[in-house]
């Protein structure tokens, strides 16, 4: 029989699915809507000392990626752009690029979405209109431009499927069976479908079955795609989380200032990641 009771685990068990060298997909973390960055899980990953991650921003990267990069956990970063909302370019990322310690695979947001859709459909590539003429095409050797087989003298871009090994995200709630309510951010479901393993931290776990609620179910990622769930209230802190809480702008400002230098970043990690100091809500 299907038995999902073991799907709900503690945070260290959750992140144990993320191995060194893993192709890890993470959501955009500056977004006005529900669901997003599993920052508490990111801190746990740094504490564990994961190495050589290939991070895929869906479709961009921000705080999560910057913390992992600064902590030396990342080998390669792939994203449509890298930004910390109004705070601009992530500082640890900028330092790592200068030092040449990470490889940046620049993309464009719709190509990441399309690559994940190809991954979801189990197809090796997907065509995409536009983009031609951009330097992103010349530098992405893993993409191809072909003559449209359904047209004539009509060049079209093909982007490769993206199939992450792990998708990690934070969501508003899970039911007792590990079904996740992600709301309207369906791109997170696409990324989960395309990934071999999906790990989710949630604000709350509800003693219900979302699959039987015809209204809720439309915002659900079925547990068919979910490997493990962990209960992490305020799991997106210091980022905002939809209508649940606003971003901790003061803390973010402190992060950005600290992360400008290696020493500052180390002190930040020591205090907020290793000693687990969390600014009270």
């Amino acid at each position, binding site marked *: 029989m299907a038995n999902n009771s073991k799907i709900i685990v503690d945070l260290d068990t959750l992140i144990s699915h993320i191995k060194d060298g893993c192709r890890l997909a993470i959501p*955009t973390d500056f*977004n*006005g*809507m529900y669901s997003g960055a599993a920052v508490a899980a990111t801190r746990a990953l740094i504490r564990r000392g994961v190495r050589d991650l290939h991070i895929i921003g869906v*479709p*961009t990267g921000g705080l999560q990626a910057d913390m992992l990069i600064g902590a030396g956990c990342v080998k390669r970063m792939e*994203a*449509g*752009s*890298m*930004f910390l909302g109004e705070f*601009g*370019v992530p500082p640890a990322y*900028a330092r790592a*690029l200068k030092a040449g310690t990470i490889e*940046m695979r*620049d*993309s*464009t*947001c*719709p*190509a990441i*979405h399309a690559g994940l*859709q190809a991954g979801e459909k189990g197809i090796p590539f997907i065509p*995409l*209109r*536009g*983009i*031609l*003429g*951009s*330097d*992103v*095409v010349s*530098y992405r050797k893993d993409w191809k431009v072909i003559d449209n087989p359904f047209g004539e*003298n*009509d*060049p*079209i871009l093909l982007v490769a499927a993206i199939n992450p090994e792990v998708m990690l995200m934070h969501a508003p709630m899970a039911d007792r069976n590990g079904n996740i309510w992600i709301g*309207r*951010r*369906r*791109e*997170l479901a*696409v990324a989960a479908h395309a990934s071999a393993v999906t790990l989710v931290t949630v604000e709350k776990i509800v003693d219900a079955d979302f699959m039987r609620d015809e209204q809720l179910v439309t915002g659900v990622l079925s547990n068919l795609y979910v490997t493990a769930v962990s209960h992490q209230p305020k799991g997106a802190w210091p980022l905002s989380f939809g209508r649940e809480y606003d971003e901790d702008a003061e803390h973010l400002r402190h992060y950005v200032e600290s992360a400008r230098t290696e020493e500052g970043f180390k002190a930040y990690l020591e205090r907020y990641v290793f000693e687990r100091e969390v600014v009270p809500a």
Partner: protein
Amino acid sequence: MNIHPQEFLIALLARKIAGARHVAVGSASPLTGAAALLASELSDTPMRVTILGSKNHVFFTEGSRELFDASAQGRIDAFMMGGGQIDGQANVNLMGVGPYPKLSVRWAGNYGTPYLYSLIKRTVLFREEHTRRVFVSKVDYVSAAGVNEPNVFRPGGPSALVTSLCAFDFDRKRGRFMLESVHPGHTLEEVKDNTGFDFDMPERVPVTAVPDSRVLGTIRGGVASQIAETYPQFAERLFGVGRRAAKTA
């Protein structure tokens, strides 16, 4: 009437997207957001405004991919964006300064611009800072290409460029900017001195029109309260309308 330079730019940008059915703007710029809302308020025909990152001005229910698909479907026909560097062929660079991939300065990256710039019918480029640092002869990296070879499928592209000094139209066939007008208080010489690319000019260069009182009233009324929802600090500074006012509006 006393007109703030940013109100002047909002009115100018709104004229550049007049007649659109659906305009989208990025979340980074309150000015373009205000311009889109103004254009919608002034439009005789229905005009939708999508402000990415806003809660009220979004018509999407399926997350961030939907913007791109809707653009490819032709459901968004006007777009406004900025650029770190812009050259005379309307190429836009959002990646950084210097030879790629090393770069001496890194910006945020391409976002969706290589796609949207090709597919949305018209894009109005907007950059307040009018210097040779921004308006270069050739961008260091092409995030979004101004023009393509004629056999490339490309339903959209750049239509205009607005700065704090002047407004250009873009001629897609020739792949060149044409100076349309210079803003009051500025000169053609000033534009030339601060532009790193070559551009065309009419025989007589007009002065950019100043918004009339009806337009200004709309900016300070409906637009200000709507824009405060997404950009409370901006609205507070420019119009004295805070977040609380917006929420009860």
